[in-house]
């Protein structure tokens, strides 16, 4: 086990992320909903640089009571990181793909202490 100082908690905007090298590993640290989550920068699809992608709120299509739809919307409660290689999306909190729950990013443990974020690898 090794610990790496990533940055201060205030260095990552809400929502936002930072991608760092910790020894041999590249990781992305995400801030969303007041919490921090970290994932290996390797897409579950083709090992692309998933954490270097853009952040988007999950897209939903609200249904009216009669089963019709009118417009798309963003779900402010769900934030996705999108792999820039092929567009695979993953929930930054759970690491799961919205389309296939078996596709997951690999989590990195974090420790927050005295205003600093540490990654445990």
């Amino acid at each position: 086990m090794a610990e790496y100082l990533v940055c201060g908690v205030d260095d990552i905007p809400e929502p936002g992320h930072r991608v760092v090298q910790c020894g041999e590993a590249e990781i992305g640290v995400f801030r969303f909903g007041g919490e921090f989550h970290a994932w290996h920068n390797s897409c579950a699809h083709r090992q692309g640089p998933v954490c270097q992608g853009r952040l988007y709120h999950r897209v939903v299509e609200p249904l009216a009571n009669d089963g019709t739809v009118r417009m798309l919307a963003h779900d402010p409660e769900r934030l996705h990181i999108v792999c820039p290689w092929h567009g695979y999306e993953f929930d930054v909190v759970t690491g799961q793909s919205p389309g296939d729950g078996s596709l997951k990013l690999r989590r990195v443990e974090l420790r927050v202490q005295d205003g600093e974020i540490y990654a445990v690898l």
Partner: protein
Amino acid sequence: MNDKMFEKANELSVQQVDVYTDTRDLLAHARVNARRRGFQDWFICDVDAHHVETVHWHEIIEYIEDPVIREQALMYQKERIGAPPYGLNGDLGLRYQDVGGRIPHQSGQREKTEPGVHRDVTLTRRAMESLGVDVMVVFPTPMLFLGLHPQPEMEVWLGRAYNRWLIERILSADDRIKTMIYLPFNSPDEAVRMVEEFGDAPGVIGFCITSTRHKAVHHNDYMKLYAMIEERGKPLSFHAGYHWQDPSLATVNRFLGMHALGFAWCNIVHMTNWVLNGIPERFPKLKSIWIESGLAWVPFLMQRLDDQYLMRSSEAPHLKRLPSEYMREHCWYTTQPMETHNKKALANTLEMINAETQLLYASDWPHFDFDLPQEISDLPFLSEQAKRNILGLNAARIFGLDTTLRKSL
């Protein structure tokens, strides 16, 4: 905390990929993966990659043969505002491949390039270097729609200008970059002329018909063209594309649905005509390559045509064998976009198309559904020889390529 207990992490230079990101940074993981798999020792040919020819449209129109049209094109490019590149048809604003900015390399590659080397040469080299590719075959992008142009002459003017530009400005700069030249298929005599004029140019390893068009590939008008290409021994490819204005797709409202169907549908139609009219019987040495339709359509069509043919063989009197046998022995296929999610179905597909000899790796870089060489080498059900064949040796055989390893990983 004691600072001896931790190391400081280093911030990556690219925090968020965008259209300005260098190809080598974006594909850095691909290069690492290629090294880990030992691709340095594998001959890898990418049979389908792309460049965006419209970035250099101002250069290409200089090559238009007709002086009046050339003048018209030059003035249009110089003075017209708010218009797409001169002479091109297509879907204009219906190109949502980047999914709202989620896949930036599909939208644009605005990275810095060195002066003195053509931008497209530089970008192609960067892609080869990153993917671990020795030889890359490049195709245009917006011109894939040109077969639907209302003026067949425009396909001739622009197709010829593009071929000349590509040969003189891009292929001549690096012998690792190859192409199958654009044939203006809507004008059969001009397609013949194109083969005569450019067929032996350095870097030209075959001929390309863009599949998005409404022309019967079995029409008598094309027999001279096929005979000429067969005699030269270079393959003829059908490069797929999508076409949202196709009436058969009129109800499809999602880009992904249209894209998934369109890229397969055009080649399904052409292959059906190709086989049922006995083109492989008439030109047994003519090598056809079916590009960018993925692979899952092939077993579907094999089964469909075999079953129907046996009930109505009098309608296809040229055939001496099952349609699937022609598709397996006379046709080659590029891998991308390979349908990989169901490994059992994929294994069956590769067996049905005799992948060991008929399948050719293609990346389709820089498009959103590009494939890496590792997708072939990681398949658990192929022998190493089959993997090497698919990744490069099959291409070397049908194109007559030198298999000297040229890359540096």
